[in-house]
């Protein structure tokens, strides 16, 4: 059966990579007077609608796309779930 699925991908900067955006957001939060906020990391969120058939094959494809194009392994990590 063809189900309509969605891949939800989260891409985050590797720990060693400078994340000035995270720092800026953190500063802004502190500035606004929010207490108790610690480190902030800013990454990307990608949602892909999938018409595809079998979840296992789709999983394979998304993983492939993440590795090859959606993320850059030199600077980023990725994870995803399929719903």
């Amino acid at each position, binding site marked *: 059966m063809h189900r309509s699925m969605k891949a939800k991908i989260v891409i985050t*900067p590797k720990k060693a990579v*400078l994340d*000035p*955006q995270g720092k800026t957001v953190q500063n802004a939060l502190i500035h606004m007077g929010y207490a108790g906020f610690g480190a902030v990391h800013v990454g990307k969120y990608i949602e892909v609608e999938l018409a595809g058939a079998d979840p296992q094959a789709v999983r394979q494809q998304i993983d492939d796309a993440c590795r090859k194009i959606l993320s850059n392994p*030199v*600077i980023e990590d990725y994870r995803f779930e399929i719903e």
Partner: protein
Amino acid sequence: MNFAVLQFPASNCDQDAVHVLQHLGHDARLLWHKEPSLGTVDAVIVPGGFSYGDYLRTGAIARFSPVMQALRRFADNGGFVLGICNGFQILCEAHLLPGALVRNRSLQFCCETVYLKSATADSPFTNKIPADKWLRVPIAHGEGCYFADDETLAKLRARGQILWQYCDESGALTDAANPNGSLLNIAGVCNERRNVAGLMPHPERASEGILGSEDGRLIFESLIETLSHSTAAAVA
């Protein structure tokens, strides 16, 4: 010499590269990203711009163009390739060069003139640059902060693959002279084989007196010098 300048859908410094090479008396033509072959060329320039609007990551999508497969073969065969700005980003994304370029630490696009120090004259792209000359060349990018992991950086250093670094007026590699937060003030690197190089600054915008600096010419002239000694044009 005979240069090909790659043209992606939103390349916008492609014409500038052609202009400067012609100005220096060489043949240069644009090569559309859908071309599967480079034809016969002596060297290839991957120019600046916003190849695919730089959506996702700079250079990420351009890397998969047909012409890039041809470029890879050309580079593997020892052909000379120079990536400028977005071209540098594309070459890193394509793993033809080590490392990656991430967002400037200011989080802003930055267009200004910088000083560049050549870390070595021992490369096809720097051989005509005098050791005591800092090039005055403009940058214009939002994602030019060079990153590589420690191990890669150590290798780059050991093998002299760092070609250009941001410096101040006196040649010092200070943090203040670093416009984007690049590690080790790196502005440009080459591959291990030394036939592929990339840099964030725009030498093509600093190669004519009327534009305020001719320092960028030295980079093109280094390459041209190298080509005039290399035997046959690589074909891909």
